[in-house]
């Protein structure tokens, strides 16, 4: 077990050049040393943040909720400090307040205000919110974890990088239970096996009913 937790202010000692460091976890101080700025975890030669707010990047797929309708654009609530903007020319539909959409981040200005594009309306379904730093764990390597849940529970899931997840179809309560478990135990080893066992149990129960 080489797992180690780092606190803000600790210096990063790069003894191993194969160490993969997520750029959000460190800053460079006045003496040109890399120091941690977030609570982070070292695991399998990579350093990842354990918790924190969503930091937008161009090209991210996100899930949002229309929060206001203006003359030429929509305000979209995105689980960040400020609502994103969706220009009305991007879509031929008229959205209403409360409509869930998935979209792509097209532009970020210096105030971290987000302009969205390529919207897709998500009729029906529900959304849940989880910690944005746990999204890679929910997706798994090449989306294996997400596909596992989708196939076993026979439901549609779309994951937004901003921490909103849209679910539709059958067995939604079971899917939410599993997603919340992944969120709370994302740092635990052998989580995939645990989830596989849980899904098998749920499937057996469903067959009995």
């Amino acid at each position, binding site marked *: 077990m080489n797992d180690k937790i780092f606190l803000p202010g600790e210096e990063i000692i790069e003894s191993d050049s194969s160490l993969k460091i997520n750029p959000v976890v460190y*800053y460079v101080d006045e003496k040109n040393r890399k120091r941690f700025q977030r609570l982070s975890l070292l695991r399998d030669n990579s350093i990842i943040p354990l918790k924190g*707010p969503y*930091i937008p990047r161009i090209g991210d797929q996100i899930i949002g909720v229309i929060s206001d309708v203006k003359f030429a654009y929509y305000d979209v609530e995105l689980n960040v400090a*400020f609502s994103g903007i969706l220009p009305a020319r991007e879509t031929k539909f008229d959205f209403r307040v409360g409509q869930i959409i998935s979209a792509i981040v097209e532009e970020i200005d210096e105030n971290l205000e987000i302009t969205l594009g390529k919207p897709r309306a998500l009729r029906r379904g529900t959304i849940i919110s989880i910690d944005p730093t746990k999204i890679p764990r929910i997706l798994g390597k090449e989306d294996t974890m997400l596909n596992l849940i989708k196939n076993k529970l026979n439901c549609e899931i779309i994951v937004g990088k901003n921490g909103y997840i849209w679910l539709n179809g059958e067995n939604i309560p079971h899917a939410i239970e599993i997603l919340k478990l992944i969120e709370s135990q994302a740092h*635990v080893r052998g989580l995939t096996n645990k989830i596989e066992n849980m899904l098998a149990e749920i499937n057996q129960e469903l067959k009995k009913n």
Partner: protein
Amino acid sequence: MSELNNTNQEKKEILNSQEKKLIIDGKRLDGRTENEMRELKLSANVLNSANGSSYIHWGKNKIVVGVYGPKECLPKHTADIFKSIIKCTYRMAPFCSAEARDKPGPNRRSIELSKVISNVFEGLVATEAFPKTEIDVFIEVLQSDGGTRCASITAASVALAHAGIPMKDMVVAIACGKVDGKIVLDPSKEEDNFGESDIPMAITVHSKKFMLLQLDGKVKREELEKALDMALNSVETIYKKQRNALENVYSQTLDEEIEAELIMD
């Protein structure tokens, strides 16, 4: 209740004794030596709805801290277009101390402490990363016994780290006092009230910068230098507790998993 009676008795004893001594044979009122801290317990992740939270039990101080944000800065005229604003709210519960409160709401003392603690974290948090937003730090003092500002800063540092907010360094805070002509570490309420001086300090853990230095009463230059040294020497001890608190949040489930893996093998 027994704690309250004890402190009242102790106070009476001090007032009744003709010598009015707070240090007898090198031992302080609660049996500590001059260079000894009170017992300190810290834990993180105590609130469900907050982004980050912590609980500190330092001597008889009991404080809960919750961190929310970064979120939209309201009212909007308080926002800064270049950085995030840290809004600390220090609040004493009505039952937190032996003295009765005359009126509800923030008083002179809690307004001062809110301001002082906000200033400490404005120098530490990477505020430029979140322009036009605010970060709320709510500090609720459930029980107070001298040194709540130091305990609050120590706990708020843990809560901010737990919330995943980018910070340049962790900060610990500790007070020194002058009692019976001697500099002592971490004065309790009696030593604070009946002593000669009180010097709360907040120090960053790795760069050893002073983020807060207040001085109440009179001290000589040499005495102040001694107090600064004393505080600097106790930084590591407090930081270890902060580290343990944050590690415990994640280690509990880690341990469970280790057992499960062994069974599977």
